[in-house]
């Protein structure tokens, strides 16, 4: 019974992943893509638990899920850091010039 | 060449003859440019040692003993083996004795002209002679190949000694021809023999494996014959001869060495070796394609003589003369008779002596007057009587008049031709002798009997003593060879 349910859940998740992957492909901004990747990442954790249920060894697979839960947001942070905390070199030069003028 | 009932002994003397010059190189390089006398003493010393060692083996050989030395095992069945038989010893004697003469001569020549890089010159000269002795004493095909290559490479710096553009071109042609033929024509032929002669179990020994090529098919034999003949391009047979005049840019002692002793003679020596000791006379005589080879040799003789007629540069004229004379040697070998091969062996020695005299003279003229062309030599005979006299003698020897050495070998060649029944070859010999007269004698005649073009030239003296003495000796040698022809003939085994 639980197995059939797990299969159902898994297939449903896979089908629902398709629009998410569409978002990765379509974009338009990198943030959209990253968002979608994040979603897929969390869902992968769920799918791992589902596969674990199917194998009847959830205790084994749950370790992966923990790893995913802990590390999945690293990529989101990297991308956000890449896009957020960077300024183009022109701007930086302008800033440095401003500093010089101040001092 | 060797009779079967000889005894074979192991002795280190062949190796000493080969290694002594190599050790001498160390001394020469060590003495260097700063200590000229010491350096030349070294050269002279090793030349003498070599000659002594070589000559010391003559009595052994005449008493029917063959000296052998096993150096190392090259391939599974093929050792690097040195063996002294009559043919090789004769050649070695000629080479090492003439080397002494050349040494003395080159001291005079090089110092007279204040040449550069003399250390290099002497060092590579010694290496060349070492390789020549190696070829002379080789006991099998691979050994001979080994030393043949060594000679090619070690004479390259000698040919390009002048370092100018002409020298470079000459050197390139020289090396291009020799390495191309040896690596691309000769090596496959050797490999062919190695593989198909009993699956690599045959050492291609000159003594033991003579005539084993006979197991091949007719076509294969002809192909092999062609490969071998043209593979040893040092022999200067006609289509592959043009390196030789090009190499004339070298200093005269080198030209003398190239054209009289070491290089070209090594070429013909190898060819004769292959004809007589790999194929063997029996196999060769049954071979149809053999006639073609005789034809090629004859063509070489005639064509080169005709070209020589048109050359004004003295050394070039001598070079073409050499090509023609080499043709004789090849011709003798291709005749594939006992007499013919013996004649060609003798001709190696006789021609060496005569031709080196001619070259020495050309060099002496250059040292004394700076003249290179035949047309410039008018009246020189009165100012340099010794030199031009020696030139006369050398010319006559090369032409083949008694009582000079050249006569003996030509005699045997003619005998060999008759033996084979190829009478037309005798006519070729006659015609070519006539041509020899036409291109060699006018030089001496011009020098002695024509007045100089103008008297404004500076006073010309005889060349330095170090030049004159060797050429006198070799000129005398031409006479001597005629009179000791008996022992020589017995040495190459023609008497029985």
């Amino acid at each position, binding site marked *: 019974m639980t197995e059939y349910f797990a299969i159902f859940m898994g297939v449903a998740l896979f089908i629902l992943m398709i629009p998410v*992957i569409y978002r990765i492909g379509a974009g338009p901004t990198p943030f959209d893509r990253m968002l979608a990747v994040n979603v897929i990442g969390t869902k992968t954790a769920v799918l791992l638990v589902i596969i674990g249920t199917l194998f009847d060894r959830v205790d084994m*697979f749950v370790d992966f899920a923990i790893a995913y839960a802990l590390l999945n947001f690293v990529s989101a942070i990297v991308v956000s850091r890449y896009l957020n905390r960077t300024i183009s070199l022109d701007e930086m030069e302008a800033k440095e010039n401003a500093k010089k003028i101040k001092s | 060449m060797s009779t079967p009932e000889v005894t074979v002994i192991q002795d280190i003397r062949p190796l000493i003859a080969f290694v002594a010059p190599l050790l001498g190189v160390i001394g020469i390089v060590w003495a260097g440019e700063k200590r000229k006398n010491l350096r030349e003493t070294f050269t002279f010393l090793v030349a003498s040692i070599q000659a002594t060692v070589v000559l010391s083996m003559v009595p052994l050989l005449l008493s029917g003993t063959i000296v052998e030395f096993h150096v190392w095992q090259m391939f599974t069945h093929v050792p690097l083996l040195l063996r002294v038989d009559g043919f090789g010893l004769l050649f070695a004697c000629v080479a090492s004795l003439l080397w002494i003469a050349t040494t003395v001569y080159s001291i005079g020549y090089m110092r007279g002209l204040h040449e550069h890089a003399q250390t290099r010159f002497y060092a590579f000269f010694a290496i060349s002679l070492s390789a020549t002795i190696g070829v002379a004493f080789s006991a099998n095909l691979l050994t001979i190949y080994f030393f043949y290559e060594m000679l090619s490479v070690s004479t390259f710096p000698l040919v390009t000694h002048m370092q100018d553009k002409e020298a470079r071109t000459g050197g390139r042609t020289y090396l291009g021809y020799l390495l191309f033929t040896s690596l691309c024509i000769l090596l496959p032929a050797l490999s062919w023999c190695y593989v198909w002669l009993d699956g690599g179990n045959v050492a291609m020994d000159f003594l033991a494996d003579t005539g084993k090529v006979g197991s091949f098919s007719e076509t294969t034999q002809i192909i092999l014959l062609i490969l071998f003949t043209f593979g040893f391009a040092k022999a200067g047979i006609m289509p592959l001869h043009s390196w030789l005049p090009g190499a004339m840019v070298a200093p005269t002692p080198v030209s003398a060495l190239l054209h009289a002793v070491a290089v070209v003679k090594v070429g013909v020596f190898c060819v004769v070796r292959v004809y007589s000791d790999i194929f063997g006379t029996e196999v060769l005589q049954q071979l149809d394609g053999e006639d073609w080879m005789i034809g090629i040799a004859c063509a070489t003789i005639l064509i080169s003589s005709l070209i020589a007629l048109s050359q004004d540069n003295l050394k070039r004229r001598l070079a073409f003369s050499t090509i023609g004379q080499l043709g004789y040697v090849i011709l003798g070998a291709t005749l594939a008779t006992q007499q013919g091969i013996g004649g060609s062996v003798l001709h190696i020695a006789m021609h060496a002596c005569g031709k080196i005299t001619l070259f020495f003279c050309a060099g002496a003229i250059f040292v004394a007057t700076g003249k290179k062309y035949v047309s410039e030599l008018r009246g020189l005979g009165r100012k340099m009587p010794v030199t031009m006299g020696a030139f006369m003698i050398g010319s006559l020897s090369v032409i083949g008049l008694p009582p000079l050495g050249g006569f003996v070998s030509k005699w045997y060649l003619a005998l060999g031709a008759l033996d084979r029944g190829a009478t037309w070859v005798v006519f070729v010999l006659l015609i070519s002798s006539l041509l020899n007269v036409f291109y060699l004698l006018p030089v001496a005649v011009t020098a002695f009997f024509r007045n100089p073009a103008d008297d404004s030239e500076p006073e010309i003296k005889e060349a330095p003593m170090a030049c004159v003495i060797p050429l006198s000796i070799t000129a005398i040698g031409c006479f001597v060879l005629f009179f000791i022809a008996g022992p020589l003939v017995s040495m190459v085994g023609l008497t029985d």
Partner: protein
Amino acid sequence: MGLALFNTFILLLLVVAALLALRVKDLLTASVVFAVYSFLMCLLWAEMGAVDVAFTEATVGAGISTVVLIATIFNLKRKSSD
């Protein structure tokens, strides 16, 4: 049966992800798509029962590979030339 179904989906999505990664010119996007690819690979390994491989893929794919790729892109031009 369920695993076979999963297999089909995973492989399908893998192909999509791989093609996407090839097609995009923006290297940042490409590396992000690679993250998806490695998630799916992890699922594939897990589904095939190769749990140790799956775990390795999980840790490396989620934790390291994207970071290292983007750290590299940080020092390069973001647009790929082809």
